[in-house]
């Protein structure tokens, strides 16, 4: 399905060094529009580092990242977000003491009026913007879990892990990004919860047009079910790519996972 289309995200010889440790080694990777790409590999193979370099949390040591045709290498995290890339985190980074609504609005930063005058003085205009955003957020949450949408003003700390993951994904989606980076969404959840969450992701994909997703995941069942294509990393290098079935058959991949010499 890749054909001749232009990739949405492409890394070209991307490298990242921490001191002497090579976390990403000349990585070439392409993600095409509307694709769900699985990023897999053993612990420490550089998957999360890839996300962090793409989103500007770490500067790249070498190489280039292009997004939608533009060079985004070493842009600030803020600029990457504005360009249309949103993400979730491996360890849930919601603000637990804030409400669901607050957390989702954090993800909506670029679409909210941040002016001092608007926020402090023009309270009527603020009220309209607030109501509009509330409706939008509620609709989005409803897609995942309708009961959750009735509890928008409760603190996140009171919800179970699966709801927190949903909220985190809503936070990443509310600003209508072109590319969503999901970092191990199933971490810390039971098998049933994971299945539920995968269904949710499908629902979202159906609802939101032109959404491209890169997902890091250890649960191979998840990868098998939802991805169109997979890339396998080991020691910061791409060792294999293709559909899940292709990748699973690859001897190098089996070695990397099983540690067979």
């Amino acid at each position, binding site marked *: 399905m890749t054909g001749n289309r232009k990739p949405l995200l492409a890394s070209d010889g991307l490298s990242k060094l921490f001191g002497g440790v090579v976390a990403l080694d000349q990585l070439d990777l392409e993600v095409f529009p509307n694709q769900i790409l699985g990023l897999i590999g053993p612990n420490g193979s550089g998957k999360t580092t890839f996300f962090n370099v793409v989103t500007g949390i770490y500067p790249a040591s070498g190489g280039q990242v292009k997004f939608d045709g533009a060079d985004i290498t070493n842009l600030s995290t803020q600029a990457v977000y504005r360009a249309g890339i949103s993400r979730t985190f491996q360890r849930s980074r919601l*603000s637990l003491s*804030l409400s669901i609504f607050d957390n989702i609005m954090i993800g909506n*930063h670029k679409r909210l009026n941040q002016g001092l005058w608007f*926020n402090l003085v023009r309270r009527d205009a*603020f*009220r309209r913007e607030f109501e509009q955003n509330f409706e939008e957020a509620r609709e989005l949450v409803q897609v995942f879990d309708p009961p959750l949408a009735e509890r928008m003003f409760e603190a996140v700390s009171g919800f179970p892990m699966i709801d927190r993951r949903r909220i985190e994904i809503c936070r990443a989606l509310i600003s209508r990004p072109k590319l969503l980076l999901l970092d191990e969404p199933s971490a810390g959840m039971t098998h049933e919860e994971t299945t539920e969450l995968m269904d949710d992701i499908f629902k979202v994909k159906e609802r939101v047009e032109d959404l491209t997703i890169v997902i890091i995941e250890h649960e191979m069942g998840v990868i098998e079910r939802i991805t169109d294509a997979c890339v396998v990393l080991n020691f910061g290098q791409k060792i294999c790519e293709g559909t899940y079935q292709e990748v699973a058959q690859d001897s190098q991949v089996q070695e990397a996972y099983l540690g067979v010499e």
Partner: protein
Amino acid sequence: MSARAWLVPLLPGIVAAAGVTVYVILLLVVESQVGIAALLVAGVIAVLVAARFGAAARVGAVFAERDDILNLLVILAVLTVTGFFYEDHFVLLMVATVIIYVIACLGLNLQFGYSGVLNFAGAAFFGIGCYTAAVLTKNTGVPHLVVLVAGGVMAALIGSFLLLPVLRTHSHYSAVVTIAFGLLFKIFLEVNDTLGGPQGLRVDGMNVLGWEFNDNIEIGENFEASFYVNYIVVGLIVLGFAFAFVRRVERSWIGLNLDAMRLDETAAASFGLNITRWKITAFTLGNFLTGLAGALFAMMLGFIAPTNFTFGDSLILVSIVLLGGIGNPWGLVVATVMLIIVPEKLQAIQEYRFLLFAAMVILILLFRPEGLLPRPLRTYIPGWKPK
């Protein structure tokens, strides 16, 4: 809607406010040490009982719905207390001091209550406001209302020298920056003779459009009210603005930004939040409020000296914010009243008051780490409900 239907839902709140007002008046009237101690015990028990039987929750619910009513009631309460003690200078000085401290702490609340920008030099920024007022009132003819603002501006300006280290450092490291600044400021004032040195400076009383704040208010032949009433009124007006300002910050996207930044800088930055911009905003606005409070304080007290602005004084300000319930402006008010009025009234504890104060803070941090009045979740528009 009939008056009754309008009033009934508010009743728990009104009763509570009236009760607290009467309690504060009693506390201020009673002089016998045993009486005060008994009142304090009674107060603690009353609060515990109210919490146990859900009365406190009902009152809280009323105020959460109608916080305009709460604001109004508090202003009424302060005016009632002021009216009751209209010629008692000392009591009114305490009331005015509480008001001014609350303004200063609102500034700190903006800084570390919302934004997580630590500031252990609160007393220093307060002091900058004080010294600005002293210099301007003595040496220039700047109108005194402008002096107030100048105190705030000066604090914000001098604070901006610290911006670079404050922006670059985190948690403990930034604590050291402000602690060092606080100590430096005090030592500088002590050794620098042009600002009065250790002896401090006299400050002129406030004068707005010919109205001398430091003269008692005389109406007719027989009525004379303490001059501190002037400062209470001005203090209340300034506090009203400061309070509304801080409230609106909290109830807007800005407040959300500040919270997001405090709770997780990395995540906030990943969603486009410009950490530098909001840290500068919070730090500068906070210092402005603290400095403004300082300027008013200096004009009221008429005398300032470096020993007012020690590390210990900064700690008291920080304690107030934490004890009250970090991030909750109403918590500040309660904590300030406790920290200023109780030791003043309980003279018997004189020598022991620092010990007891410190012990009290430790107990509260251990058993109620979220403070006396924990901060509720954000409501963007009070009383608003989803359709």
